[in-house]
């Protein structure tokens, strides 16, 4: 991912997958809005877009036609009561859209959406669920069914907590399980060690419920955990304590090796890119001799960070 010089068409084609702008957001899944407007056009457009312009050198293409994928996807929930979706409903869609994944490149994340995706760099460093066709198609969309025509409710989807867990989690549970079951080699998990409201690892998280249990122990060797901490905020949990000790126990109980690292340099560099004047960011000292732009110092200040990377987190 070091190429920044565009050397012509061929090199540029290789770069396509690195320079795409992934549509991603941090929607509150509990908001009571209806199905995303024009969801079919968004879904199918993403599908064709993915096929032509995304991850060409990183992930295999899908054989199934995009119209067929939409049909299988929408059949799982349309013309049904919104909470009447089963875990198995999306199985056919998942099997058609499933991709094989390169070894050692799979990265899971929990409670830390934005930083995890900046770190994974659209597949250049790691591949997240949202880089695969299944995750890419559904990322940030809202949808639910209704029994009356048109079968899709565009005005209001239920609060997830009003549905049985199986219905509310059905799609992403299946997507997560499918993703995890395709992983081989060493896998990576990024978690947030500075969230005062929830532990870095929870057995009830998607990772705990659907990903860790679905890792194929014959194909996966180790789970390497990255614990990220917001700059200038208390480190509530670090490797080896609290929920991370529990995580180690759960990973080793599955027969997998476990490693854990707090804030690897590359992660800190990313955080510092957003907040170069933070006291953790010592490279800024290299710029004291006049080359440090005044606006960076004046706007960022100490112990204030742009409310960006770690605060934008989501739990499915």
């Amino acid at each position, binding site marked *: 991912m070091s190429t920044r010089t565009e050397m012509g068409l061929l090199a540029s084609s290789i770069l396509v997958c690195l320079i795409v702008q992934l549509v991603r957001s941090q929607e509150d899944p509990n908001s009571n809005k209806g199905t995303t407007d024009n969801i079919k056009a968004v879904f199918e457009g993403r599908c064709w*877009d993915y096929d032509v312009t995304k991850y060409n050198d990183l992930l295999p293409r899908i054989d199934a036609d*995009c119209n067929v994928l939409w049909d299988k996807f929408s059949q799982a929930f349309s013309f049904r009561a919104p909470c009447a979706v089963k875990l198995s409903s999306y199985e056919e869609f998942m099997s058609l859209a499933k991709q094989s994944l390169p070894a050692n490149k799979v990265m899971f994340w929990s409670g830390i959406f934005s930083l995890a995706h900046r770190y994974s760099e659209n597949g250049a460093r790691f591949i997240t669920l949202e880089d695969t066709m299944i995750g890419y198609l559904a990322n940030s969309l809202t949808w639910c069914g209704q029994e009356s025509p048109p079968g899709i409710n565009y005005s209001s989807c239920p609060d997830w907590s009003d549905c049985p867990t199986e219905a509310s989690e059905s799609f992403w549970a299946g997507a997560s399980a499918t993703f995890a079951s395709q992983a081989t080699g060493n896998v990576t998990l990024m978690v947030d060690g500075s969230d005062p409201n929830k532990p870095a690892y929870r057995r009830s998280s998607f990772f705990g419920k659907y990903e860790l249990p679905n890792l194929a122990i014959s194909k996966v060797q180790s789970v390497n955990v990255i614990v990220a901490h917001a700059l200038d905020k208390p480190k509530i949990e670090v490797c080896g304590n609290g929920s991370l000790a529990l995580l180690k126990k759960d990973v080793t109980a599955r027969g997998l090796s476990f490693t854990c690292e707090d804030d690897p340099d590359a992660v800190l560099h990313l955080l510092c890119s957003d907040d*170069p004047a933070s006291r953790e960011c010592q490279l800024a000292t290299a710029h004291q001799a006049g080359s440090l*732009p005044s606006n960076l110092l004046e706007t960022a200040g100490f112990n204030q960070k742009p409310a960006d990377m770690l605060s934008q987190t989501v739990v499915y």
Partner: protein
Amino acid sequence: MLKSVLMLTSLFTIIVDHHAVRSQGGATQQIEAIVKGRCFAYRFVRPPGLLPIPDVDCDELWANFSSAWTYRESCGQNRSSYENLIHPLNQPLPPNKSLFWEETKDFTHRLANDGKRYVPIESTLIGYVADDLTWCGQTSAPGINFTYCPPYHSCSNEVMFDFWVAASKWFASHAQGEVRVVLNGSLPAGVAYGRNSVFASVELANLRSGIVTKLTALLVHDLDKPKMETCGSQSLLDLKADVLAKNIAFDCLENPPEVKYLLCADLPESPECKQNDCGNLPPYNRGSGVVTGSKEGLCSILLYLALTSVVISMGR
């Protein structure tokens, strides 16, 4: 034949900015579904970032876009044919956020953070829907040539080049306040600022004096490689002269912190990423918060004082 096409393509892509990277072969398959899908996703799914979301009819957007080039020859058309598309959109651009680029597209997009930190043209609706696509027309049905398109800018009024020129002109002529351009200081043979580039001839040329107050060149150098150009090199002096001639203030920064940290995220082992004023300490203070107590020592205090004094001295 193929070889000559490739050579021609390389030639032109070096000379000019290019967004279309799949000129090989014909128009992008399913381009209509992709453009409409991106438009709907921009309106209803993508987080807005710094830009307001235009209330645009996506079918109409496609109609206005495609009417500029479908059922026509790919070369020799009237450049103004995209006016019907671009003019009505007129998405307002926030002041101080516009980010131009030349030979640095991939890196620029990472720096812009999906339109949340800065706004490159590809974060605007018009740039977003067309990025990485290839298109050209033919007089016979279906009006789109899916077999062969002339390479980008390979002929007079080539339709993709004209699109990006028209879009860049709109983008530049609506910029306000302080703007930035990301230039490549490590081009093996090129110049970071070329007066025949789209940035120079279209974007800089269309910045409005008095409304754009300052242009800052962010000159990016590959880590651990020779710097081919610095802010004092001739092409940057050319840029300075051209900017000042428009009565716009100019600044040039080589790998400023927000840039350098992003580079270091990819190459954390680079010696340039290890430098600090604290002897042989790791590049970051790994002081812990509430969990393990503070390990931060003299180094961070010195750093704090040093940076504070910089702020104070700049305030004078």
